[in-house]
């Protein structure tokens, strides 16, 4: 493992070679913003994007995943028996995933793969995807990754991290999967020490460019009930319209719903992204709803990311500072403000 060099002019050939083994996804600008789309033949990769509008979590946690299938046809001996839905997990490469989004997958991983339960779809999809990350030379003004144990060139979760050095890309191999990928792509030229130094400088420079910072130091030490009962939630939540935009764009929101859908006598059990912003999320069949009020739901989203997760996994906050929710909340609820409010809130006198 080590640092390789890809001349920008060679990039199309590298991707072409990868396409023989993998489905290759690249950032494509469409209708005014970027999405990760399958690379078309002869398509030139656009490296100017800041980040994709939607996070790439759907590669591992699709918005709708067919879990099982069943038949309700009484003539079948297996009528009403729920069975695995056969499906493939073709190897994929996500080219240009940003470091924050790759780290997000690591943060979510503990929810789907833990000593007690292993989520088969999450695990198989994660195994089948190789993450060829691209460091951020020009972070956005709303990025605050460096405050949350991440950064514009953070390596966590990536298989290869690319440094855009202008004429060429330096490819830093981080895993065996990444090494194999570069071999398949025919990337074999080692980077000399001068370029390595340039890459490291690029990282330092990008980190300095991050202009947005949030405090996190006291979150772990706070009493959970002090934060839960803090006086600021009504003000934070007032503007919220209870849509799921923040949760659906967020790379670390993983909550899902399970639904059965039947067409004629054939059915599927499907899991769909869900959102803690929706009242239905927690509504009991009896009609009781522990989070019936908007303020309770808004509080849940922030408490989950900035307190419950912190306490449960002792691995920092469940936020990578990508700024998607900051930019796309229609009513400008800004998680950076909530970080400040929560971290700097007063402790109760009784503690």
């Amino acid at each position, binding site marked *: 493992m080590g640092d390789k060099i890809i001349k920008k002019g060679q990039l199309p050939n590298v991707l072409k070679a990868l396409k023989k083994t993998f489905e290759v996804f690249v950032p494509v600008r469409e209708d*005014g913003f970027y999405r990760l789309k399958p690379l078309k033949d002869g398509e030139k990769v656009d490296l100017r994007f800041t980040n994709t509008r939607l996070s790439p979590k759907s590669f591992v946690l699709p*918005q709708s995943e067919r879990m099982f299938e069943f038949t309700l046809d009484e003539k079948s001996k297996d009528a009403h028996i729920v069975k695995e839905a056969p499906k493939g997990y073709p190897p994929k490469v996500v080219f240009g995933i940003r470091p924050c989004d790759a780290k997000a997958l690591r943060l979510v991983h503990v929810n789907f793969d833990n000593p007690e339960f292993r989520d088969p779809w999450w695990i198989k999809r994660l195994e089948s995807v190789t993450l060829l990350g691209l460091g951020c030379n020009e972070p956005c003004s709303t990025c605050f990754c460096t405050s949350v144990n991440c950064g514009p060139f953070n390596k966590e979760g990536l298989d290869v991290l690319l440094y855009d050095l202008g004429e060429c890309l330096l490819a830093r191999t981080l895993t065996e999967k990444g090494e194999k990928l570069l071999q398949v792509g025919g990337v074999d030229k080692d980077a000399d020490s001068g370029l390595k130094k340039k890459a490291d400088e690029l990282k330092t420079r990008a980190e300095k460019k991050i202009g947005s910072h949030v405090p996190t130091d006291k979150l772990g030490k706070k009493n959970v009930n002090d934060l839960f009962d803090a006086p600021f939630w009504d003000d934070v939540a007032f503007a919220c319209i209870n*849509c799921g935009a923040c949760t659906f764009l967020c790379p670390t929101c993983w909550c899902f719903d399970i639904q059965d859908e039947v067409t004629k006598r054939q059915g599927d059990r499907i899991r769909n992204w869900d959102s803690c912003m929706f009242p239905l999320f927690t509504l009991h069949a009896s009609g009781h709803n522990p989070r019936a009020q908007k303020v309770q739901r808004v509080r849940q989203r922030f408490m989950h990311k900035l307190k419950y997760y912190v306490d449960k996994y002792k691995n920092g906050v469940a936020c990578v500072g990508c700024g998607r929710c900051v930019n796309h909340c*229609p009513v400008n609820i800004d998680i950076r403000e909530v970080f400040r409010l929560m971290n700097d809130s007063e402790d109760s006198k009784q503690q």
Partner: protein
Amino acid sequence: MGHSDKISEIAKKILEEKTVDVVIGFRKGTLPMMREPVLIKDAERTDQLYWDSFCFINLASYLPKREEKIGIIAKGCDSRNIAVHIVENQIKREQLYIIGVPCEGMVDRGKIISLLDGKEVREITESDGDLTVRGDGFEHTLKKGDYLQDNCIRCMHRNPVIYDALAGDLVEERKDPDPYDDVKALEAMGSEERWEFFSNLIKGCTRCYACRNACPLCYCPACFVDESDPQWVGKSIDPTDTMTFHILRAYHCAGRCTDCGACEQACPVDIKVRFFTRKLNKDVLDLYDCEAGLSTEERPPLDTYRPDDYDEFIR
């Protein structure tokens, strides 16, 4: 005195005099082109109130189910939605003190973002119909009129239709001959082409329901898409279910929609959802000679039965 100052002044007065218990308005957001709806209870905090061309959220959305006396800032479309709420018994007129803001259109943040092609806006100021946009190493002066939201370009009711005070002088209403020129293209399509158009329009929809939730008309305690017993619509991103949501949402708004554009501005994936409601608005105007929210007396046309209706089917 600018709109913001005037709004703060009125809000302070009505809170101090206890005309109202709370004021709903906007405060300056954390991003250059975003404003945050805010609820103010304390007269001392009215200096937070802010107004400019990025107050695109329709504040009427925050009224249903509120019990107290409320001061609310309303541009033309907001005031029409307040009128709709009053007609539909979502709020009482006596509960409200409406601070009307004559409006020359809201700026479409998306249009400015696309113009800059990836460069970020760090600061934006406006004066006399000009916008000055500043970022890292650039400054542009733009004509505000060129960057208005699509609905504002065709808006015929820029002045509030009901108000108790005004935060500025009334503006001249537009007298364009045809506010629905854009719908003509839709009408010219064949049904298959139109289906294709709408299918394409919503292909990126994530069903986050920001369009629905930003809409003041969508105040049902349980929306049909959320009902689970019975369940009307599937919850996956199956195109049929997604289309069902959009079509039914639009039909629920027919005759009630003021074309405020909040739905479109709220969409996190830039879907032009107004295409669904525009055609219905035009039909309601053509068929019933009615535009929503112009009166606090008249019920919406699709909610009205008249024994002398000239259509056969209803008799």
